[in-house]
């Protein structure tokens, strides 16, 4: 009776021999429109959410961008790129940092050709980080100081300029016309309008003077201002002086330095030497008109870097006090590169005054870095393509040895061997002077490289059947994880030396490396243990049944799978380690974040712009962290594990 209720085709049905052809999906369900509909406007709630979020997001973006373009004063970054990147690493030894960068770049480029996709991605990250490191303007390595030139106008005086000079050098002061208007650049024209009253509180770059010349605000032929040019010693005694008059505007003065010391150059407009008969419209005597261009040669100017200040104080004695003529809030510090343009800016001015100086100052070194990478890449590629199997084997071996030696080589290059070494005299650079991004990357790289194997050992130790090793591992892991990193760094600073006996002089950077490595290793151990736990026991059994011993089992079977499974967690641990390196500033090492404090403390004029400096540092942190996590995503997708299914 049941069968009566079945429909026609229900009980007996045979499909036609051929399946029907596949059709396209209905319109509006695929493509961009389909995606938008399905993901952004699928329901009333979703629509409201989309609207609200996009309004908030645009507001946020608008505010940030207008601030960055119109208000922010990025010169704190532009003028301090070297400090941000390598801190107070001595100028004369900067080539060593660059050599390290080149070494990293070449190994990475080789590695990208030679190794599998996993390693390849990792090496690309490294290369990108290093490119950020070499953002040091290459010009910074030039030790020869450019002549200092500045301009004195008829209605303002220049503040006295303080500088140091060494025994045997010749200081040359001159008042002379600018004869290289067209070839002068911001780089070779260090000089500036000094404290133009009421007009602008800052010094102006050559490009700005050039603009004024072009607009007729400064007439070059008017370089006929009578000026008394004096060279004073640190106590203010006149050592030499020379007078420039409208009749003989071009004068110069040379002074042979007898002793390392501070000197002061002083340019004063001398009214009594000019004809004051001319009167203005209401009958008052006119001030002398025109300009004087003053040039100082062969000296290194007092820059406001605190490190330099310390060094200068040691070598040349206390900095002489001078009276400043202007209400210049930059004080009497000269030769600072200008703070181009204060106040609201249009996007065009932003590009011209803020972005392009930054790019032009870092472009050359980035381009060199990219060229080195591409050349090393190309050569390896060619050798691999046209060489036989053994060539590739050799290349791989060289690359491997290069990576194995990278930490000692980097360390020796950065620290130096001490000047006495007869073969290779590398002046030793104390690690307190490794600062900025250099220190951040160094701490991250070494503690990542050291903490991964250590973490694996502790993870295996914690799982091992031997109670002594197991207990030790658990104790280590839980102790370290139970304390904040900052505590561990204090411990590393104050306690670790005791373990090394007379190691009281153990380098601070090494102490921090020990602290960071142990800290990261404890977390790494737990991450790896998580990975080990998800490997089915059958893998172990299969391996043992084949006769592989426990070490081989771990090395060939368990660890490769466990580590791949924890790539995301491992990478996020490394990203977090990278950011945690900023904590070393608490014991007085100035890494990327700490150096900002150093910059604004040493150069008061940047104090109002500390925000910009922190934003820039934030961007650098973000770029590196983002690259790291992008690589982690790639690692998950590529390689043998991608085909894995169970």
């Amino acid at each position, binding site marked *: 009776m049941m069968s009566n209720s079945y429909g026609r085709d229900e009980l007996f049905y045979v499909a036609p021999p051929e399946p029907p052809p596949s059709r396209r999906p209905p319109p509006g369900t695929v493509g961009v429109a389909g995606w938008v509909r399905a993901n952004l406007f699928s329901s009333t709630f979703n629509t409201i959410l989309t609207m609200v979020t996009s309004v908030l997001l645009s507001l946020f973006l608008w505010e940030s961008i207008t601030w960055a373009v119109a208000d922010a004063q990025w010169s704190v970054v532009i003028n301090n790129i070297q400090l941000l990147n390598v801190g107070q690493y001595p100028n004369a030894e900067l080539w060593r940092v660059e050599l390290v960068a080149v070494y990293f770049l070449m190994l990475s480029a080789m590695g990208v050709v030679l190794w599998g996709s996993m390693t390849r991605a990792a090496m690309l990250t490294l290369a990108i980080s290093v490119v950020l490191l070499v953002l040091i303007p290459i010009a910074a390595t030039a030790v020869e100081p450019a002549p200092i030139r500045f301009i004195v106008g008829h209605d303002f005086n220049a503040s006295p300029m303080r500088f140091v000079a060494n025994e045997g050098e010749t200081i040359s002061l001159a008042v002379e016309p600018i004869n290289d208007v067209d070839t002068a650049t911001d780089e070779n024209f260090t000089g500036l309008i000094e404290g133009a009253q009421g007009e602008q509180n800052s010094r102006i770059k050559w490009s700005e003077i050039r603009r004024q010349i072009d607009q007729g605000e400064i007439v070059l032929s008017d370089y006929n201002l009578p000026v008394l040019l004096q060279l004073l010693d640190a106590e203010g005694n006149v050592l030499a002086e020379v007078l420039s008059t409208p009749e003989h505007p071009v004068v110069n003065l040379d002074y042979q330095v007898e002793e390392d010391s501070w000197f002061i150059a002083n340019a004063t407009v001398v009214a009594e030497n000019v004809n004051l008969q001319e009167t203005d419209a209401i009958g008052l005597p006119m001030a002398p008109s025109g300009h004087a261009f003053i040039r100082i040669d062969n000296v290194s100017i007092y820059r406001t870097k605190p490190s330099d200040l310390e060094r200068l104080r040691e070598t040349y004695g206390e900095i002489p006090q001078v009276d400043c003529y202007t209400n210049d809030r930059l004080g009497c510090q000269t030769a600072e590169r200008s703070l181009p343009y204060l106040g609201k800016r249009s996007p065009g001015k932003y590009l011209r005054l803020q972005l392009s100086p930054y790019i032009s100052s870092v472009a050359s070194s980035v381009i060199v870095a990219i060229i080195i990478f591409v050349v090393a890449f190309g050569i390896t590629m060619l050798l691999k393509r046209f060489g036989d199997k053994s060539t590739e084997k050799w290349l791989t071996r060289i690359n491997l040895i290069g990576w194995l030696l990278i930490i000692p080589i980097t360390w020796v290059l950065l620290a130096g061997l001490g000047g006495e070494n007869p073969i290779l005299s590398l002046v030793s650079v104390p690690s307190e002077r490794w600062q900025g991004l250099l220190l951040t990357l160094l701490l991250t790289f070494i503690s990542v490289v050291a903490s991964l194997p250590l973490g694996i050992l502790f993870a295996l130790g914690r799982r091992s059947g031997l109670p002594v090793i197991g207990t030790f591992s658990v104790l280590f892991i839980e102790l370290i994880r139970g304390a904040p990193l900052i505590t561990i760094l204090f411990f590393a600073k104050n306690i670790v030396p005791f373990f090394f006996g007379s190691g009281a002089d153990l380098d601070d950077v090494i102490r921090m490396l020990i602290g960071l490595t142990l800290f990261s290793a404890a977390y790494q151990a737990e991450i790896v243990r998580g990975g080990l736990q998800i490997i089915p026991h*059958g893998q172990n059994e*299969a391996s043992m049944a*084949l006769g592989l*011993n426990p070490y081989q089992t771990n090395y060939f079977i368990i660890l490769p799978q466990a580590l791949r499974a924890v790539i995301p967690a491992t990478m996020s641990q490394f990203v977090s380690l990278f950011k945690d390196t900023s904590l070393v500033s608490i014991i007085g090492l100035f890494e990327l974040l700490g150096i900002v404090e150093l910059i604004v403390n040493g150069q008061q004029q940047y104090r109002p712009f500390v925000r910009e400096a922190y934003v820039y540092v934030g961007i650098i942190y973000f770029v590196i962290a983002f690259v790291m996590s992008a690589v982690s995503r790639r690692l998950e997708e590529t390689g043998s594990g991608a*085909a*894995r299914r169970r």
Partner: protein
Amino acid sequence: MDNSNGYIIELVDVNKWFGEFHVLKDVSMKVREREVVVVIGPSGSGKSTLIRCINRLEEHQEGSIIVDGIELTNDVRNINAIRRETGMVFQQFNLFPHLTVLENITLAQRYVRRRPRRESEEKAMQLLERVGIPEQARKYPGQLSGGQQQRVAIARALAMEPKIMLFDEPTSALDPEMIKEVLDVMKELARSGMTMLVVTHEMGFAREVADRVIFMDSGRIVEIGTPEHFFRDPQHDRTQLFLSQIL
């Protein structure tokens, strides 16, 4: 071999406990060289534990196990020697998912047998031919069907040139369509004279290939017999009950 009177596996009064639970109770059995022995029984009867004791994946607490004249003790050298004599195939295949099929088969050859790379790859290809899937050598286990994976697992065990093959329910995790291809390989192996100890629920296989059938229940051996006798004329009540339920 000579000192064990032609028996390649000898178990005498083997007892094993998992904690308080008595899994194997006075198990004694002998396997001759080139013999195929099938172990059957309900789940939880201890049959898997029994063969896992033979290559020390499980440790027995009492009694003695002698494989190819080597007594299984806590001595690591003995354990390794026995593992070199025995190959094992698992219910879940347990292939190494991060290695290709070829690497799965060559790994132990290279690092346990210390065979050069080329030689072990030749051996691996030879075995893949034998199990019928030479074209899959470069793939990863995850890209193969269950039946193919199990055949790779057999090839992997054979690559070590064992004297004994232990099979722990090799077809239980397979789709019905794939069981046959694995059983065919096992039959071929049996014909070639390999000593095999097989835990399985495939009664057809037992009937066709086995020299002897061992029936286990609650951790003890209940009945041993040739397939003809065992299936046609089981003696023990428990055996009769078991067979009536599955046949």
